[in-house]
């Protein structure tokens, strides 16, 4: 079973999604339960994935391989290491609340709604588990279609603009990555990512490939200045779409940097790391300020996501500055550890915050901060959760948000004082925009009649927010297991990123 565990994780949700689609809107009762069972089953499949994961090796595990296009030496090759495994678990974990959150709320074409999310889940697991570049790209692009439909069909008033912008932005980034992948295939004769990683490339080639990767991953993360699709997409997307977008799709950009950019074009990364770090710091500081002035809750969290993802790219690319200032790679792993923890943690926290906004939106049909105030008086339990997630978003020690930011800032000290000083600004800005949001929405006297008539969380909402709160706290208090899982893979990645691939 271990041989096909990853395949099962990919195809089980997709198959379930197709069945839900075929059951149609008339049998939506059965469709809903099937969706829930399938998403829970996928989560259950993650248990053996975590339990039997060997934390002592950087090699790929749970490997599954079959010839796909023999002429191109492209294989249906799957496998996980310490970098992809946590992201797969996150994917399975975040799909369940999305299914539950839509339970009674989605009344327009619900069968298609569930099917889209289940198919997305399978495709996203595929992205994280593919060890063949062509297969990776296949999943990476295929995923755009369900997301395009999710925003376009169930989104808000400007959904068409938002979804086409989302699609074209990501598509623009991806086609150049495809061109780079094909170039490396023509050179190496294989599409396996490992063969790309060991392929010698001149500096000129590396720079072009770096640019192509940068375009694809920077759009997805998203980094300033190609981030503008994200606030639009988030604001217009239905709650579930926002959750998946923030919790998982953004992580694909970070994953791409770790899996492709750093090990495949290390010399170009070494040369151009200042670019990535500068853009990351701009994201952290400038976007932090932008978040401060938002009137729309979803937009605020979207900008907060961009700022937090800035930490991911910062942590990933600190290695070269560390080597330059200390002469050794000691501490570089810490930056990457931080980037990874930040991804997982941000996945949980941003997902939870979007679910919180969804809870309010379902009741009031408004996302404007000005329409709220004093929610705590009528929804005390909800307020408790919202405050917890907000504090986690600011990086309060004891929550998962703290671990990632702390590791990255610590590593940036080794690189340069100024990096860490600038990165640390987020501690102030993040607290400012998040806590101010909470202050305006949750605290204070009841703002208006609508707020006065709000009802507190129902069992369904309590369940999903409670589970996520638990995850945020566990990861914050005891991150050790996650760090241990990543350790060998991160060390391997540091070696790869520090090496040179220029043929002599």
């Amino acid at each position, binding site marked *: 079973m271990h041989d096909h565990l990853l395949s099962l994780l990919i195809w089980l949700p997709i198959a379930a999604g197709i069945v839900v689609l075929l059951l149609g809107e008339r049998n939506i009762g059965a469709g809903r339960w099937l969706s829930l069972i399938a998403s829970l089953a996928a989560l259950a499949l993650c248990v053996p994935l975590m339990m039997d994961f060997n934390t002592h090796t950087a090699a790929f595990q749970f490997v599954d391989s079959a010839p*796909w*296009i*023999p*002429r*191109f030496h492209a294989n249906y090759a799957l496998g996980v290491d310490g970098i992809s495994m946590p992201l797969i678990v996150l994917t399975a974990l975040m799909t369940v609340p999305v299914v539950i959150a839509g339970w009674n709320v989605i009344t327009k074409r619900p069968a298609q709604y569930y099917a889209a999310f289940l198919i997305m889940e399978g495709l996203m697991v595929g992205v994280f588990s593919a060890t063949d570049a062509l297969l990776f*790209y*296949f999943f990476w*692009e*295929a995923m*755009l*279609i369900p997301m*395009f*439909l999710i925003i*376009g*069909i169930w989104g808000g008033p400007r*959904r*068409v603009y938002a*979804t*086409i912008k989302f*699609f*074209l932005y990501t*598509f*623009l980034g991806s*086609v*150049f990555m*495809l*061109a780079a992948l*094909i*170039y490396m*295939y*023509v050179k190496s004769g294989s599409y396996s990512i490992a063969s790309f990683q060991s392929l010698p490339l001149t500096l000129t080639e590396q720079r*072009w490939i770096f640019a192509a990767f940068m375009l694809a991953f920077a759009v997805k993360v998203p980094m300033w200045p190609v981030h503008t699709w994200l606030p639009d997409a988030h604001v217009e997307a239905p709650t579930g779409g926002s959750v998946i977008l923030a919790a998982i799709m953004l992580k694909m950009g970070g994953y791409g940097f770790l899996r492709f950019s750093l090990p495949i074009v290390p010399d170009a990364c070494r040369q151009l790391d200042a670019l990535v770090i500068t853009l990351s710091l701009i994201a952290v500081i400038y976007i932090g300020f932008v978040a401060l002035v938002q009137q729309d809750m979803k937009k605020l969290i979207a900008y907060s996501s961009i700022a937090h993802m800035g930490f991911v790219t910062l942590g990933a690319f600190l290695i070269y500055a560390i080597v330059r200032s200390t002469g050794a790679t000691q501490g570089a792993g810490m930056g990457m550890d931080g980037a990874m923890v930040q991804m997982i943690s941000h996945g949980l926290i941003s997902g939870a915050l979007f679910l919180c906004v969804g809870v309010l939106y379902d009741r009031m049909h408004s996302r404007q901060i000005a329409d709220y105030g004093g929610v705590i008086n009528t929804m005390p339990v909800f307020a408790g959760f919202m405050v917890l997630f907000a504090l986690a978003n600011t990086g309060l020690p004891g929550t998962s948000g703290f671990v990632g930011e702390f590791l990255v800032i610590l590593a940036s000290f080794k690189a340069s004082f100024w990096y860490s000083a600038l990165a640390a600004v987020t501690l102030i800005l993040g607290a400012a925009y998040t806590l101010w949001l909470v202050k305006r929405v949750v605290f204070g006297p009841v703002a208006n009649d609508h707020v006065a008539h709000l009802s507190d969380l129902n069992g369904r909402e309590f369940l999903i927010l409670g589970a996520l709160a638990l995850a945020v706290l566990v990861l914050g208090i005891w991150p050790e297991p996650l760090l241990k899982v990543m350790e060998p893979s991160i060390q391997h990645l540091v070696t790869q990123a520090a090496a040179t691939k220029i043929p002599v």
Partner: protein
Amino acid sequence: MPEPMMNLHVMAAASPEIYLTAAICVVLLFEAFVGSKRPGATGTLTLLMLVIGAAVTVAFADVTQRTVLFDGNYIADPLAYVLKLAAFLAVAVSLLYSRAYLQNRDILKGEYYVLALSALLGIFVLISANSLLTVYLGVELLALSVYAMVAFDRESGVAAEAAMKYFVLGAIASGMLLYGMSIIYGLTGTLSLDGIAVALSAPNNLGVILGLTFVVVAVAFKMGAVPFHMWLPDVYEGAPTSVTLFIGTAPKIAYFALALRLLAHGLAGVSVDWTAMLTPLAVLTLVIGNTVAIAQSNLKRMLAYSTIANVGFILLGFVAGTPSGYTAALYYTLVYILVALGSFGVIILASRKGFEADRLEDYKGLYRRDPLLALAMAMMMFSTAGVPPFVGFWAKLRIFQALWETHHLWLVVIAAAMSVVGAFYYLRVVKLMYFDEAPETLPETAGSFGVRLTLGLNAAAVFVLGVLPAPLLDLCTRVIH
């Protein structure tokens, strides 16, 4: 080398053409004596003839090696075999889709089928052309049949206008082709493509370049490459949709064969010259086709510009100028035809008596009115945009690969950028069908069970070949090498 004896065994390689000529006569006679009394019977007979034709081709024309017949004028090879089968399939499917459409417009006449079959014969002659004479014969047989098909709806003014444009411009292109051929004949003293390939081996000969220019212009005209594309949007828009479907599919196979036989084989020695000519054409075609398509409000016209954009990709395969590039162009052509069949098929099925569903706004909320049509159209659009898991993705990938192998960095960049531009107008169709609400006034769609099943299979093929692309990719590689 002495010509092989003209015995029946050798002639078997030419059985598709021989059979088809006979079939045209049978259909014509049937129409004259039976079909005119029972409208529709000729169509059924034609489909039957096509199925038998495919069977005959499989039984007798499945050659394993190059066979040259009729004094070197005719060639049968595995490529021709595959192309002919593809043409049979494309014509059969397009006639199947068209039937109800023709009936609703009172143009369900036997002559339509006779013209379609003679166009198919022209396609076959082009596919198997091995001399300048046969090339010209095929080009004209195909073109003349198609001109008549465009004008088939006598009541329609736009169709007559489209046919006139097509005819006049097509005649000029034929003239160019003949003129170019005559120069090449004058320089080499032979009409045979094999002979020309031997005689012309040195590039940069001014006389050859002169002849080549006319030939390339004619090929570009036939394919619809910018700046010789002017006829294409008008013809696609003006012709009855069933004819647009016809000329948008099977003839593309013939024009691929035309470019391959003439340029890649006969004029292989001067490939440096013609790739230099095709490169700007391909780039212009990609850019103009994709950008102008954005501005269209008529779906047929938009798909016409999309065709032009796709021709740009096919030309890029020729620009690469390697067997790998030709393989890519062949694969792209076949994939394009599959998708064009589906998308024009949807337009036909969405149209009713007295109503042409050819404006983009006619597709608003199609999802609600007819989920199958909307799903099929969405798949076609995503496929042409080059999004996996649909087959169009592999077509683009294969072109990129051929360009990389020949170190065409800038062409890759332009092609990649243009596929993003293209994605915009394909997405707009999906948006109309899935995100917009349907106006109340649009008529219901229909289509018999068989036609809808065919459309479903067509869409399924786009998906299945997208997930498992290996067989078709292998086939294309095998027949080119």
